[in-house]
């Protein structure tokens, strides 16, 4: 308990200090230094033991304090340092504070409370804000990549501010959401993409990009049921707690200016055939199809052809799309506080260009965090953030009129412009340059995440807190397609969307904390929350514009509109208690009851209990006597959490919907079947863990093994279509996730050494399996994914190509059912998109003012469906699509050994078409990778030097991101998820913007 209240101590102490001067007998002075680098430590709290007299050290580390008669013991404490007790009997006191060893003695933010990591029984990963700063990414979730064991984070694409795939210990659900709950300073925030403009099935925005990463103090990831059950129905997918920076009592106001500039490029480019090669392939295809050799498509113009192969030009479109993109970030903040009031204010501007034209993202953000002690008993405060984002979005991925698509797919021998200078377009594709020049899609987001609280302390042990929050998320989109691009045909089209997602949250907690004597401590709380979410969207469309310059729908000849609204409520009561004996044995118990409006009255309430036990073996004499472990703790927990996210607000009801209009008369049509029994999806999870520290805290180990079983899945169960529906939402099916997580931290050199070097490595394995399913369910484009009992989610359902017949050049496929012919029954699951192992390595070295660091992250064993190859290695079946160079490896004559079958459009061969529809696993690839995520070198200029410039601190750094990626994957980037907007799909690669390689310079100035 003592260290968990560390943060609160300075406030109380400093507040009372002035009142106590009357009893002064003498004055003690002194200074406090950092034990490692011997620099003065400002902001250290010094308290006379047994009294309420205290002070804070100044910028020079000095302090002066009235010492009452008979008191000589001073207690020094500061966040991040071990407390020290010193006898101040004679003369000035010089104290050196040792940095607190991370991981094992820090305070961890848990659900509705804080806990000392020593007594923690849950699996919680903490990431310090310092570890996140400087990474040139728009949103904080992306920064977690490789940093927390068991947390799989991958960007869906390289589009700035775009969607992120994040899973904490795997996917539990099929149709319900698998995203974790994000809580920012106590506010449950919306994480639903609000951009309505269709962008090739990609989730077009990441609502977390509304949060400025620079404002973040720390991120805690709650993983096991004991940690998340207090969040009940919101907790099944894990909880990410984001704590933003706050001012500290007694701090001189610190002003920090932070900026960086970065340059990014695509690390790799698609490898297309040249014009002459394309013509050769086409001629060969023509002959293979039995064409007359005198009528080759690429014969001389004089003979009526399109010119001989060697006469073909090659046009490079991709270079027009990809650019060196710039990123800028500016951020100014001030933090400080008196005994009564503490504050943090920050403002930031961030702008990032996509490496694929013409997309941009920028963000203005403001934050005010205030805390005020109204009286000794009453505190009030707020955490408020305002953000405005602007995205100039453009389509890629699964959209023939996407920018990359229109550059990648058209045949390379076809000119970009018509002879008259107009944009040339081929097949289903637009002209890439027309898109770059004319796309006009703006999405402006406005976001307020705000919380006010009042907290009243009754006596010493009891605290009542009431908090009121709003997450107001607004997205205003205006798209105009002029007549120069396909989407604007024939006379200009425009759409406008105003979407609003509002969560109101009210929460009360009553917290009881007490220590009974030396050995017993108890922390208990009860609380309730009331949450209401409303979503609304108004959309407008206009067709036929008088001119390309009149872009507002007001100018359109035809204007149509629609609006939609929906709402849901959640009412919850919860409680938890932690009892600890000598900080050696700890027991946690928690329960939450949730009622959701999405379920019928009889099934509305869900109850989510959890228990956790911790035993710090290291405190037992028999372990202490070994003199090996500085910490050794066993943890175990068991609990249940629920899920109701991701289903529609009225999923349990049988409904008929309007809008089924005909002849401009209103019509209604059946929408969904009723399921009055619909109720919570629940996840049972147990977790066992071990924490250890050896070699004088130089080697730290954290192990977790978990087993999750989600049952009563909220599943769109397929029903016979003859009844007029395709599926009904039922609690049916089960998914399990089992896995382990290991994290090792090594401090290679002693604390006192001049060089500090530490490395943290983590690795995790998660095995996902569908335990029960009513019937297989297909999903994704061309039904490439299939959910099947016994297999993991995100399994690819394809024909397995066994080879190419060296005699005739035709592809051979596995005849799964052995009936001698190819049919759907021969499609099977050929792999899945889950990595077998994933993790990361973070390394940091510092010497005097120099710091050097890198982070690696890796995934091993995930498969990727490379749709670019699917389309660009087509054997001639796609008459408007060019070829990747890989097509040149096709079978040509008997005896050729290759994976790429003979060119032909003949469906009977099934090489590229026919029954197989090119759904061959030859396009499914190993997506394992090891990536150097960041590499940075910084220099903090010595304080004496910067002091001359009247600065507090100055750090300069250079950094490279994604400097290299080691992967067998043939596409641009193995970190790809092109169809993120399509449920139950993962790892499609489809004309997607890759993660850029970035060079960055930055500067942090303390004023």
């Amino acid at each position: 308990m003592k260290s968990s209240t560390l943060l609160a101590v300075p406030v109380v102490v400093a507040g009372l200090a002035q009142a106590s001067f009357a009893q002064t007998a003498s004055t003690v002075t002194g200074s406090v230094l950092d034990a490692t680098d011997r620099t003065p430590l400002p902001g250290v709290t010094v308290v006379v033991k047994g009294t309420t007299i205290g002070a804070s050290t100044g910028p020079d580390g000095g302090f002066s304090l009235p010492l009452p008669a008979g008191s000589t013991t001073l207690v020094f404490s500061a966040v991040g340092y071990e407390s020290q007790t010193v006898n101040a009997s004679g003369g000035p006191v010089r104290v050196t504070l040792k940095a607190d060893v991370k991981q094992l003695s820090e305070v961890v933010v848990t659900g509705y409370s804080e806990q000392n990591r020593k007594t923690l029984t849950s699996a919680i990963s903490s990431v310090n804000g310092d570890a996140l700063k400087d990474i040139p990414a728009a949103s904080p979730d992306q920064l977690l990549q490789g940093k927390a064991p068991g947390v799989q984070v991958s960007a869906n694409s390289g589009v700035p501010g775009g969607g992120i795939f994040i899973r904490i210990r795997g996917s539990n659900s099929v149709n319900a959401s698998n995203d974790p709950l994000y809580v920012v300073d106590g506010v449950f925030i919306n994480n639903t993409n609000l951009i309505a403009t269709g962008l090739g099935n990609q989730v077009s925005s990441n609502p977390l990009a509304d949060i400025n990463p620079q404002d973040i103090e720390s991120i805690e990831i709650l993983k096991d049921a004991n940690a998340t059950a207090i969040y009940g129905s919101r907790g099944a997918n894990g909880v990410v707690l984001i704590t933003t920076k706050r001012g500290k009592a007694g701090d001189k106001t610190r002003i920090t200016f932070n900026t960086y500039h970065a340059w990014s490029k695509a690390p790799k480019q698609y490898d297309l055939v040249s014009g002459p090669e394309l013509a050769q392939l086409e001629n060969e295809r023509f002959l293979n199809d039995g064409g007359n050799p005198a009528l080759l498509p690429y014969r001389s113009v004089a003979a009526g052809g399109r010119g001989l192969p060697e006469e073909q030009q090659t046009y490079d479109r991709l270079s027009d799309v990809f650019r060196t993109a710039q990123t800028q970030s500016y951020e100014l903040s001030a933090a400080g506080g008196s005994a009564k009031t503490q504050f943090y204010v920050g403002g930031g501007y961030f702008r990032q260009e996509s490496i694929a034209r013409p997309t941009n993202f920028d963000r203005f953000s403001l934050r005010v965090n205030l805390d005020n002690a109204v009286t000794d008993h009453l505190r009030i405060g707020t955490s408020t953030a305002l953000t405005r984002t602007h995205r100039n979005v453009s389509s890629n991925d699964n959209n023939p009129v996407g920018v990359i698509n229109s550059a990648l797919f058209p045949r390379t021998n076809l000119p970009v412009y018509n002879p008259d200078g107009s944009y040339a377009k081929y097949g289903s594709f637009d002209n890439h340059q027309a898109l770059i020049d004319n796309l006009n899609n703006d999405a402006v987001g406005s976001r307020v995440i705000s919380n006010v609280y009042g907290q009243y302390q009754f006596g010493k042990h009891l605290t009542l807190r009431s908090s009121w929050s709003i997450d107001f998320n607004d997205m205003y989109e205006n798209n105009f397609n002029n007549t120069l691009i396909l989407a604007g045909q024939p006379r200009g089209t425009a759409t406008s969307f105003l979407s609003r997602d509002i969560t109101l949250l009210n929460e009360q907690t009553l917290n009881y904390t007490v220590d009974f004597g030396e050995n017993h401590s108890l922390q208990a709380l009860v609380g309730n929350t009331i949450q209401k979410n409303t979503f609304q969207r108004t959309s407008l469309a206009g067709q036929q514009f008088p001119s390309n310059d009149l872009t507002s729908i007001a100018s359109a000849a035809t204007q149509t509109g629609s609006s939609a609204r929906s709402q849901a409520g959640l009412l919850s009561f919860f409680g938890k208690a932690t009892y600890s004996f000598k900080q050696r044995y700890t027991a946690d118990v928690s329960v939450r009851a949730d009622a959701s409006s999405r379920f019928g009255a009889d099934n509305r309430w869900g109850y989510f209990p959890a228990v956790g036990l911790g035993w710090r073996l290291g405190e037992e004499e028999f372990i202490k006597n070994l003199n090996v472990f500085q910490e050794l703790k066993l943890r175990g927990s068991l609990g249940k959490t629920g899920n109701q996210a991701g289903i529609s607000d009225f999923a349990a009801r049988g409904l008929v919907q309007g809008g089924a209009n005909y002849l401009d008369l209103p019509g209604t049509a059946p929408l969904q079947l009723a399921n009055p029994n619909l109720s919570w999806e629940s996840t049972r999870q147990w977790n066992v863990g071990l924490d250890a520290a050896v070699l004088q805290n130089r080697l730290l180990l954290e192990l977790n093994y978990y087993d999750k079983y989600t049952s009563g899945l909220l599943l769109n169960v397929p029903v016979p279509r003859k009844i007029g529906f395709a599926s009904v939402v039922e609690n049916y099916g089960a998914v399990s996730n089992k896995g382990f997580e290991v994290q090792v931290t090594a401090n290679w050199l002693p604390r006192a050494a001049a060089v500090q070097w530490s490395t943290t490595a983590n690795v995790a394995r998660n095995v996902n399996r569908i335990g029960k399913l009513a019937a297989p369910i297909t999903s994704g484009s061309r039904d490439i994914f299939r959910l099947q009992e016994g297999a993991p989610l995100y399994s690819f359902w394809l024909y397995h190509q066994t080879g190419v017949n060296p005699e005739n050049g035709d592809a051979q496929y596995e005849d799964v059912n052995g009936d001698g012919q190819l049919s759907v029954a021969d499609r099977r699951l050929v792999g899945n998109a889950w990595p077998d192992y994933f993790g990361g390595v973070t390394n940091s070295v510092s010497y005097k003012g120099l710091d050097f660091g890198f982070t690696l992250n890796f995934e091993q064993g995930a498969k990727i469906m490379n749709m670019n190859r699917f389309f660009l290695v087509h054997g001639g079946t796609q008459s408007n699509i060019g070829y990747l160079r890989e097509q040149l490896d096709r079978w040509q004559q008997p005896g050729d050994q290759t994976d790429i079958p003979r060119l032909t459009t003949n469906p009977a061969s099934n090489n590229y078409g026919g029954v197989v529809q090119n759904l061959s696993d030859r396009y499914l690839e190993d997506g394992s990778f090891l990536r150097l995520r960041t590499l940075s070198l910084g220099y903090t200029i010595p304080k004496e030097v910067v002091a001359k410039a009247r600065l507090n601190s100055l750090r300069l750094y250079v950094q490279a991101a994604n400097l290299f990626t080691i992967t067998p994957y043939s596409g641009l980037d193995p970190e790809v998820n092109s169809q993120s907007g399509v449920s139950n799909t993962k790892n499609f690669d489809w004309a997607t913007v890759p993660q850029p390689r970035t060079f960055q310079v930055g500067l942090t100035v303390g004023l």
Partner: protein
Amino acid sequence: MKSSLYQLLFAAILGATTLSITACHDLLDPTPVQQLPDDQAITDAGSARSATIGVYDRVQAYYQLNWPVLGFLPGENVRFNGTLNQFLQIDQNQLSADNVLLTEAWTQMYQAVNGANNVLAALPSINDPLLASAEKNQLLGEAYFLRALVYFDLGRGWGGVPLVLSPTRTKENGQGTRRSTIAQTYDQVLADLTQAEALLPDGTTRNRAVKATARALRARLHLYRQQWADAEAYATQVIGSGNYGLVTPYRAISTAPFLSRESVFELTFSNSDANTMWNNWFPSALGGQFNFQPVPAAIALLNDPAVGGSRSALLGTTTIAGSSVTYGNLYSRSAQRDDPSYVLRLAEQYLIRAEARAKQGKLTEALADLNAVRSRAGVPASTASSADALLLAIENERRVEFAFEADRWFDLVRTGRAGAVLGVTDQRRWLFPIPFNDLVADPDLEQNPGY
């Protein structure tokens, strides 16, 4: 003073706490503003009208793209020029049970059936003074007609299908309903058409069902069942009603504002209920995706003054990168997006009757019917003199007359000529496969042989 302020603040926290706990009832029972409970959907005149309109909307859904595609693309007039393999399979007559277009059509069609079943079940018991019996009969008749149309299409596409005739409330409804035979399916179509004909009003509405609409579909049904006399009789009723006529030029059928005198039944679209079919036909230079491209042989036929005549209006040409490109122009309203889906036309009634008469040996009358269609197109009269020659001439006439409509494939399957003409010699492939996903979900279903 000050301490009372704090007490006030504290009271406010406590007050807020209690307030928030009591204000929960509303929270947990929100009312949907966009949907109705399914058991309250058809209760009075207004909701009955809306529900019937909703069935049209569902029929419109599968006729907008999927059904025409399944009719013309397996035939030889049009090739697929886009990137989506499900279309390519159809073009290459290599359908597989996981074809997503087929699955979508199948799903949409049964949605329409369920919509009609809802109307047929709820409407008879509605007593609303605003719903006169004439209108009630009309709505019922429309529901019967639309259900007949869907089951007819299901039958000619897949063979005998499960016949679900009552509205669905739970997923157990329809359990045990296995596939019927094709004869049973067509019998159900006949029963529904008989009801529809009795209940529907006379009239000439062309985008909602009237008596003549039911008769025209019935003529086609009898043709498919080779009931020549009935086919002739019902086609004669439609042709002789005086409400319909072959319009000239041919292009007038597909010229705004549509609903020409020739149209017996077409599904109307509008800008707010848009038909984007044009986008599949127009080359990208004109803003389309050029997914469906008329093949050279079809272009030659349509442009032949002795074969296509004025039906050459089905084609358009434009210049792309210096060379001339011909495209299908039946669906051409790119700005207004109000191209209709053509379901029943008088020209077809003539050709139905011509065939029915030829089969009955009434060669002269058959030839006259055929030549009525030819003369409207401005091509010379046919001189076919034997029954076989006449039947072949009718078949070829249909190829150009309905070149881009939902006809060619079904016509050749019906006459058993899909093997000879299209080279699809495996007769098992003359029926579409039952969608694989539905086979998995429905234990009562059986796949067609050969898939």
